[in-house]
C-alpha cells in the first residue's frame, strides 16, 4: 500500500514538473496535473468533483504552509532591525528567540476580538480576509522551482498585478469601515499611493515582458535560461558544468532592464507600504493608519498579509529580473530551485528591511512627486530604450551582453566609488551641494507665501 502510494506520489511529482514552455505556446498547463490526479484516484466520481476536491486539498496545504513565510519574515525583520540598531532583538522564546513570532501569533489569537461599536461590522470583518486572500493568491503564479508551481498561467504576471492591486481595495475597506478618522486617512493615503505606484510597477514589468516576449512566469524564467541553455558549457569547474552566467538574467540583459529593476524595486516598497513610503500606516503621524482599530487575530491577519506581500513582491522581482529559481551551475539541480529563489528573495527582503531601518519617511506630496515626476518618466524611457535595444540586438549576441555588461558595471562602479570614497569626508561645505531640489526659485516662493501669510500680522 505504502509502496503503491509512494509510486503514485512519484508519478504525481513527475506530472508536477512543468516542461520549459516556449513563449509561443502560451498554453496553460495549470489544471493538467490536477485533472490527471483526479482521474487517477477519484475516478469513481464525476470529473469536476474530483478536480474541485484535489484543488481544495492543494489550496489547504498552500494556505497552511505559506503563512510560515511571514512568520520567518517577522522574525527576520526584528532581528535585522535589532542588529542595525546595536540591539539583540527577541531572545527569550526558543533558542535565540526563534519562536518569538509563533508566541506572538498565539498571543494575538487569544486576544479579544474588538470591533468598534460605530464600525460597519460586516466590512470591518471582511477587510482582513480580502487582503489576506489577495496577497496569498499571488503565490499561486510564482514559480518556486521547476516543479513547485501551482498554476502556470499564460498571463501569469498579468494575473499577479491584477490580484495584488485588489489589496488596495481591502485597505480602503478596512480604513473606512473602522469609522476612525485616523484609519480613514491611512486608507485614503494608501489608495492614492497604491494606485500611483501600480503604474511604474506595470511599466517596469513591461520591459521584462518585451524582452521575454511572454507573460507566463515560467516563460519569463525560461527566457533567462542561463544554466539550461542548450549547447556547450562555458566552463567546467571541478566537474561542474557552468553553462550560463548571471549575465543571462533579465536585470543584466540591457541597461534599461537594469534601471527597470530599481524602479520596480522602489515602487514595490511603496506598494507594500514600507518605509520610506509607509504613509498609510505612518506610526508617528497616523498612529497605525488603516489598521488602527484592529486588534487580536484580525490585526495578525493584516500583519501576515503585509509580510506575505513583501515576500511576494520580492519573489516576483527575483523571478522577473534575477533568473527565478535558476542557478548558474547546471541542470542537475546542484542546489534545488526552491533554495535558490528563496535565497534571492530573502536577499531582496533584507535590502527592503535595511532601507526601512535607515531612511526617514516622505510626505504625501513628495511621495506623489517621486512617482509621477521621476519613476514614471524613467519607466517610459525604459520601455522606449528596451524597444530600441531589441531592435538592434535581435538575438542574444555576445555584443549585446558585453555592451550591457559594460554600461551597467560602469554605472555601478561609479556609484559605489562615489559613496565609499566620500564617506566620512562630509564637510559642512558639502551640505549645500548635497541639499536638493527645493532650490533658489522655490525659496523665493516660500518667502513670498510666508510674507503673504504673516506680513499683515507683524
Amino acid at each position, binding site marked *: 500500500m505504502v509502496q503503491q502510494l509512494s509510486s503514485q506520489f512519484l508519478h504525481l511529482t513527475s506530472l508536477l514538473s512543468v516542461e520549459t514552455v516556449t513563449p509561443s505556446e502560451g498554453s496553460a498547463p495549470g489544471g493538467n496535473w490536477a485533472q490527471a490526479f483526479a482521474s487517477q484516484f477519484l475516478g469513481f466520481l464525476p470529473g469536476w468533483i474530483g478536480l474541485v476536491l484535489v484543488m481544495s486539498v492543494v489550496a489547504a496545504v498552500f494556505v497552511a504552509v505559506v503563512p510560515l513565510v511571514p512568520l520567518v519574515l517577522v522574525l527576520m525583520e526584528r532581528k535585522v532591525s535589532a542588529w542595525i540598531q546595536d*540591539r539583540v532583538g527577541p531572545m527569550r522564546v526558543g533558542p535565540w528567540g526563534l519562536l518569538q513570532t509563533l508566541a506572538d501569533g498565539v498571543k494575538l489569537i487569544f486576544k479579544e476580538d474588538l470591533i468598534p461599536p460605530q464600525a460597519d461590522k460586516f466590512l470591518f470583518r471582511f477587510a482582513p480576509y480580502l487582503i489576506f486572500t489577495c496577497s496569498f493568491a499571488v503565490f499561486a503564479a510564482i514559480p518556486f522551482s521547476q516543479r513547485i508551481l501551482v498554476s502556470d498561467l499564460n498571463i501569469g504576471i498579468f494575473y499577479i498585478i491584477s490580484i495584488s492591486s485588489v489589496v488596495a481595495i481591502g485597505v480602503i475597506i478596512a480604513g473606512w469601515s473602522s469609522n476612525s478618522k485616523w484609519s480613514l486617512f491611512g486608507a485614503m493615503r494608501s489608495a492614492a499611493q497604491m494606485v500611483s505606484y501600480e503604474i511604474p510597477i506595470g511599466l517596469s514589468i513591461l520591459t521584462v515582458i518585451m524582452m521575454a516576449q511572454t507573460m507566463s512566469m515560467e516563460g519569463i524564467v525560461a527566457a533567462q535560461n542561463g544554466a539550461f541553455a542548450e549547447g556547450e558549457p562555458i566552463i567546467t569547474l571541478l566537474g561542474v558544468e557552468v553553462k550560463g552566467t548571471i549575465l543571462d538574467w533579465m536585470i543584466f540583459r540591457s541597461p534599461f532592464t537594469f534601471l527597470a529593476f530599481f524602479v520596480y524595486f522602489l515602487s514595490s516598497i511603496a506598494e507594500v507600504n514600507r518605509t520610506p513610503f509607509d504613509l498609510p500606516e505612518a506610526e508617528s503621524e497616523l498612529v497605525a493608519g488603516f489598521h488602527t482599530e484592529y486588534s487580536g487575530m484580525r490585526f495578525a491577519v493584516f500583519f501576515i498579509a503585509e509580510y506575505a506581500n513583501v515576500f511576494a513582491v520580492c519573489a516576483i522581482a527575483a523571478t522577473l529580473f534575477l533568473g527565478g529559481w535558476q542557478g548558474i551551475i547546471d541542470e542537475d539541480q546542484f542546489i534545488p530551485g526552491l533554495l535558490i529563489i528563496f535565497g534571492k528573495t530573502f536577499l531582496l527582503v533584507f535590502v527592503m528591511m535595511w532601507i526601512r531601518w535607515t531612511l526617514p519617511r516622505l510626505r504625501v506630496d513628495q511621495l506623489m512627486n517621486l512617482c509621477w515626476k521621476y519613476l514614471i518618466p524613467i519607466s517610459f524611457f525604459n520601455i522606449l530604450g528596451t524597444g530600441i535595444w531589441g531592435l538592434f540586438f535581435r538575438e542574444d549576441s555576445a555584443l549585446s551582453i558585453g555592451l550591457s555588461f559594460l554600461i551597467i558595471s560602469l554605472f555601478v562602479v561609479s556609484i559605489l566609488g562615489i559613496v565609499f570614497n566620500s564617506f566620512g569626508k562630509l564637510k559642512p561645505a558639502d551640505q549645500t551641494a548635497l541639499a536638493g531640489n527645493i532650490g533658489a526659485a522655490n525659496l523665493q516662493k516660500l518667502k513670498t507665501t510666508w510674507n503673504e501669510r504673516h506680513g499683515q500680522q507683524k
Partner: protein
Amino acid sequence: MSNIYNGVYSVLLGMVITLRQLFKPSVTHQYPYENDFEINDNIREIPVGFRGQLHNRVEDCIVCKKCAQICPVDCIHIDARKPEKGGKMWESMNVVHLKDQTRIVGIIDGKPPKKIEPDMQFTIQHANPEGTTHPDIPAGATVKISGDKVDRIIDRKKVVLFMDQFDIDMTLCLFCGLCTEVCPTECLTMKDSLEGIEYSEFDRENLIYKFADPTLYK
C-alpha cells in the same frame, strides 16, 4: 538630474552607516538573565553612591526626625517615645569607617578629630561586635589604625528615644537623597547594590518599609 544624484547619494551614505552598525556587537544586554552585576565584567556596575532603595540601620538611628523634616514628599513617618525605666540602652561609642568599606564599632580614646590627617593614630577599643564588618578583629580587642586608612569617624550617640515607628513609603519616595544627607549618624542610606534597584512587589503595601525593631529595646 542632480536631484536624483543627491537623493541616491545621501540615501546610500546613510545605508552604509547602518550596514556598518549591522556588524558591530550590540550594546544592550539581557537584563534579568545577565543580572549578576558583581560577577560579569561586561555588565555595567552599579556605581558607589547610587541612589537606590532607602535603608535604615535602626541600631544606629537616634530618631532625630531630620529626615522626615527634609523630605519634600513626606514619605517618612517616625514615631518615638521616651524610654521607660529598665529599658535597654547602649552607651555612646564611635563608628570608624575605613577606606576599604569596612567599619569598626568601638570607642576611640580622645575626641574624634574634625579632619582626619594621614599621620594620625587611632586606638580603638573594639567594644561591640554588633555593626562591625571588619573580618579579623575579635570583640573586646584594642586595635591601632593609622589615619590614612580611616575614611571617617562617627559618634554613635547614646540612645535617648525608643523608636515605635519608622515607616518609609517607597511609593511616594522621589529618590532625591536629601534625607540621607542630613542624617547625623549616617544610618539612613540608599542602597547602591542590586537590592537598591530590584524592588518591585506584587502588593503595594509591601513597598511601605517598616524599619522599627521593638526587639532592640527590651
